[in-house]
């Protein structure tokens, strides 16, 4: 049983429109006290708008935003400031001020009319500066410190504001990698020590996974994923929401998932995609059947992906030597759900699919099933099989699938030269930039 005040931030059916554009679409979100939430999503997905709605900067067209059980717009500006602090992406102060004074600005909502800051306020400000490692710079001007120091000073200001909820909007986007780590580590420590609830927009998924208890993913104004980082982050999500094909790995020390982005899906789900090379072209093979196609395509300047393949397969060796992304299953095992999902992401990312003449058994039959799903959406090149060679070990199911592909518009080709010709003839390669 949780009372209303156990929920730091609650959005119910929040819809925000800017003219024709819907920035937030019927968003529900509940952030319990003490949680460290990363809000992520592509550019324009509504992260900043959500934070601004939570701060009461804008009135939603529909729905309600509550801070600790009270509708945010029903609170006075000062009451809001005592409940929620904000660390913007970037702040451009126009007048110089000592860092100490800058931090003291955070006390404004706690002071009465014409009431000056007391020694206690100054001590609190100095403690906050120490907490962010800026105690020695208290007398320096805000216009003379570095970007990282400025962000930390703003964090210190949010601390002396003593708000139980802190919202950060891409606080590290102007910082280098060392300062990003430093800043977010401090945020996490302070959140833990003081029990402060933190919601931070972060477009860097790896940072988000590493520093948060929970990741909320927005895409085009909708909440499309929500949960602990290890559940939320997946290759499928990356392909679907960001339009990026990536490798999901796990940090061996922390166990946190992290992503190695590889290339863009075509077309990217949001916004125009640009490509630095041709492709990618996905090669479905096995037992060495795919290797010649992988090599020739790679040589011709296409980026290639491969799979699903079993470990120890010679095609896998070729693919890895070419730096291709692959979907890999353990030897002899049937292709499992996880590998199948990865295969699906790779296939969806491909601008064309080449089906090499590979022997098909029950364990790798899902390859053809997955290729069939893309029939009509992506050009499929079916390499002609030499007659008389046994290849279908599925009791006819593989043959039926191949026929289905052929009937559905897959083009039959013979050999690597024809594959290249077919790819060149079809405008499957997006305009390179």
């Amino acid at each position, binding site marked *: 049983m949780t009372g209303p005040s156990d929920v730091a931030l609650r959005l119910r059916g929040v819809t925000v429109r800017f003219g024709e554009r819907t920035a937030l679409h019927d968003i529900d979100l509940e952030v319990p006290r003490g949680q460290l939430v990363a809000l992520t999503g592509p550019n324009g997905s509504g992260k900043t708008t959500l934070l601004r709605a939570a701060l009461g900067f804008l009135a939603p067209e529909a729905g309600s935003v509550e801070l600790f059980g009270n509708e945010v717009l029903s609170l006075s500006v000062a009451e809001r400031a005592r409940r929620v602090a904000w660390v913007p992406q970037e702040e451009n102060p*126009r*007048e110089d*001020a000592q860092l100490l004074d800058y931090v003291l600005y955070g006390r404004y909502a706690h002071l009465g009319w014409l009431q000056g800051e007391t020694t206690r306020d100054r001590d609190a400000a100095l403690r906050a500066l120490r907490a962010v490692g800026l105690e020695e710079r208290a007398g320096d001007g805000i216009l003379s410190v570095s970007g990282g120091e400025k962000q930390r000073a703003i964090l210190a200001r949010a601390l002396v504001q003593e708000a139980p909820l802190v919202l950060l909007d891409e606080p590290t986007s102007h910082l280098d990698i060392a300062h990003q780590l430093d800043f977010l580590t401090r945020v996490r420590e302070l959140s833990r020590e003081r029990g402060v609830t933190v919601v931070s927009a972060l477009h860097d998924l790896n940072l988000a996974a590493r520093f948060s208890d929970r990741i909320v993913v927005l895409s085009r104004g909708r909440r499309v994923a929500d949960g602990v980082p290890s559940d939320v982050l997946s290759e499928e999500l990356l392909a679907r929401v960001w339009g990026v094909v990536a490798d999901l790995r796990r940090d061996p020390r922390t166990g946190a998932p992290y992503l190695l982005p590889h290339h863009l899906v075509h077309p990217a789900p949001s916004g125009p995609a640009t490509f630095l090379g041709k492709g990618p072209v996905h090669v479905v093979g096995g037992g060495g059947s795919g290797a010649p196609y992988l090599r020739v395509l790679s040589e011709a300047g296409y980026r290639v992906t491969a799979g699903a393949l079993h470990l120890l397969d010679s095609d896998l060796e070729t693919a890895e030597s070419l730096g291709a992304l692959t979907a890999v299953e353990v030897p002899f095992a049937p292709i499992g759900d996880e590998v199948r999902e990865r295969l699906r992401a790779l296939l969806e990312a491909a601008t064309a699919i080449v089906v090499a003449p590979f022997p098909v058994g029950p364990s790798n039959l899902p390859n053809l099933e997955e290729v069939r799903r893309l029939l009509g959406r992506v050009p499929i090149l079916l390499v002609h099989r030499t007659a008389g060679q046994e290849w279908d070990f599925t009791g006819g199911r593989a043959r039926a699938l191949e026929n289905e592909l052929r009937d559905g518009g897959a083009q039959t080709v013979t050999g690597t030269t024809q594959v290249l010709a077919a790819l060149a003839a079809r405008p499957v390669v997006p305009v390179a930039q």
Partner: protein
Amino acid sequence: MGVTSAIPPGTPRGLGRRPWVLGLLLALLGLGVFFSPILGTVSVSPDTVLRILLHQVSGGALFSDPCAGASVPASGCAGLIEIVWDARLSEIMLAVVVGAGLGISGGTLQGVFRNPLADPFLLGISSGGTLGAAVVVVFRIGVSEQNLLLPLFAFVGAIGTGAVILVAARSRFGSVETLLLTGVALSSFLSAVLSLLLLYSPSGSLQVDFWLLGNLGSLDWTQDGIAFGVVLVAGTLLATYGRELNLLQLGPDVAQSLGVDSRKVRVRLLLLASVTTAAAVAFTGIIGFVGLVSPHVVRRIAGSDYRIVLPGAALVGGGFLLAARDLSLVAFPGTLLPIGIFTSFAGAPFFAYLLFRRRGASTMGAP
């Protein structure tokens, strides 16, 4: 925890607060007010002037015959007292009050617009005031009461212009940029109306020109009292918004997240600055550069905290205008030039200096 470490030495200029500067400025201004009556269009010896002042201030207790030993005019000692006390001192007080009003308005507007080049006439207030004054002159309204009607019309014209900006500020689209552009557009429009008006009444243009140049002449204590009252009330209210102005420098959103109702505060500040400026210029005409320069002088010497900048700009503005009056009397003995000419002479080079000097950290950043 012993966290009382002082601000490290070597703190750059423009940082920190130096409230004692206000005391210094106030003392300097007081001295200026006391000694300025020595200067005037009629020659009166300095010791006589000081004796008259002390005589008046003490309610007649000191120097029962302040004119002893002086060359007394036909009207006797009372005539001298009238020159020093009524004419000169009222003129001096008006200079101080008007300068203070312009200074504090300038500081406020620079803060509200986050722009170091903002000044009290930015919002079209000068054009509105001029138009109001021109209406009285051109249409010969109440010729005998012009001493009060002209300021009244000027005030109404000025405040009316300010009101248009206020309406814009209250609207949803009232961004700082919108307000600035509205002010500029309004100024041009009102100047066109003024030109049209003067075209049909060439005789009025000389008087309007005189108003445009700004002057402290032909005044009495009544006018001082009105100007003093309005500027004091509005200026004091303005001075209480130093902290809010500090926060507004971080941008309206950040200020709001810290507890400042940005839009409401902005409207209030614009209203108070408009009233202060309108009251100041109604009696004297347009006096340029005081509002622009005074806040920057304070920033240079006392830091850029608005809690100091606002009262400081009032003191510096008052001193600036007083100094302009005194200097004009020293440079051109026997005549009182329109004071606006003098402030512009002194202000324009300073303005250029602000524009071209190194973009240091001590005053407001570039616009």
